[in-house]
């Protein structure tokens, strides 16, 4: 079963590996090019988060959590707001109004540039954190009818792609399957277990 699942998802995994770096790069482009074209912190944050969500859907939440731990996500959520508000505080300390970026440099235009950069980055960081956090929160619920950590993967693959939800598969026996899955000699196998939701007993 697992072997079959792994082979079935391999194309998705390879394509995801190819796509994710470009998605991240595009998010950075949208973030830092927002002054000159359409874009900005909100869009960039969502796109940045989308890369991690895609990774989570294909490789399973466990792998994504190793890349982006939930503690980091919570720090991101708060630090973006802090960066934004802190920029405002700094402008006040420099003798101007809240969020009056003219104070940030000798030349008002340069100050505005720095201010825009900082607050857009703050928005992007917070939005990234919140979006990934929302995805983690929804996808890691345990008390649903499906096995917990791969809820996103199940919904994406099981229902839209293959029309066969993981919950409708026979649930593997917990201990034996866990033992076989847990030695991480072959990463792909482990991932496939995540994707198929097979490495986890149904809650």
């Amino acid at each position, binding site marked *: 079963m697992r072997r079959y699942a792994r082979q079935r998802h391999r194309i998705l995994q390879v394509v995801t590996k190819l796509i994710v770096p470009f998605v991240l790069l595009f998010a950075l482009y949208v973030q830092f090019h*927002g*002054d*000159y074209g*359409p*874009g*900005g912190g*909100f*869009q960039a944050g*969502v*796109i940045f*988060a*989308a890369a991690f*969500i895609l990774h989570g*859907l294909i490789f399973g939440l*466990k792998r994504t*959590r*190793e890349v982006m731990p*939930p*503690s980091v996500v919570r720090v991101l*959520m*708060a630090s*973006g*707001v802090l960066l*934004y508000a802190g920029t*405002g505080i700094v402008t006040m300390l420099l003798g101007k109004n809240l*969020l009056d*970026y003219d104070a940030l440099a000798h030349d008002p*235009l340069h100050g*505005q*540039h720095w*201010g*825009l950069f900082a*607050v*857009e980055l703050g*928005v992007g960081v917070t939005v990234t*954190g*919140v979006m990934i*956090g929302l*995805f983690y*929160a*929804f996808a890691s619920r*345990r*008390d649903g*009818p*499906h096995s*917990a*950590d791969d*809820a*996103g993967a*199940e*919904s994406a693959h099981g*229902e*839209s792609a293959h029309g066969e939800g993981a919950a409708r598969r026979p649930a593997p026996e*917990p201990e034996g399957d*866990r*033992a076989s899955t*847990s*030695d*991480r000699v072959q990463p792909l196998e482990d991932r496939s277990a995540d994707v198929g939701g097979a490495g986890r*007993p149904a809650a």
Partner: protein
Amino acid sequence: MEHVVIVALLGFLVIIAVGIIVLRDLLASVILLGMYSLTAAGAFVVMDAVDVAFTEAAVGAGISTILFLGALSFTDGRAQARGHDSLVALLFVAVTGGLLIYGTLDMPHYGSATSPAQTHPELAVRFLERSAEEVGPPNVVTSVLASYRGYDTLGETVVVFAAGIAVLSLLGLRRRRSVSEPPEDAPGDRPGRGDDEPSGEGSPESGESGRGAGA
């Protein structure tokens, strides 16, 4: 020509909205919601609101669909048929919708060059004429969003943050106080899991709670 495209897109929006209401299959509804957002984004592009379209496509068509799919995995995917359709509700909705449409009659026409937003000296005129020397970026939207209205955007960011906190406290931290822990978190199960899965089952809270239970 542009009007034809916009009307066609808005017509699609109506059709998709009706489809969302009529369909009982929740998965199809979620897909249609994504289509709705993408069509709306297309309409925004035609209306030259590229930044809005960008956000709509990324948030509405992208993330929302994923979150809905995640939520859908907790249900059986079918909306329950309601027992009755109240005539009072229909009347209420019709009256409210009629009032809203009546309210739009006072609004300036689409693309009107004489609308207050276009002609007010402190709004579009000032932003378009002065933003380059006052703020700098060629994208006036960014100037307005982050500088002229930086205070609003700070509020928006705080709202996003608060929403994330709310969801995390409802869903993400839930397992810390959950009574009916699944058997994997039983103490006897800990050693094996600890060795094999360094990342733990879930978020750090769950790991801590599991460790707490084990100790």
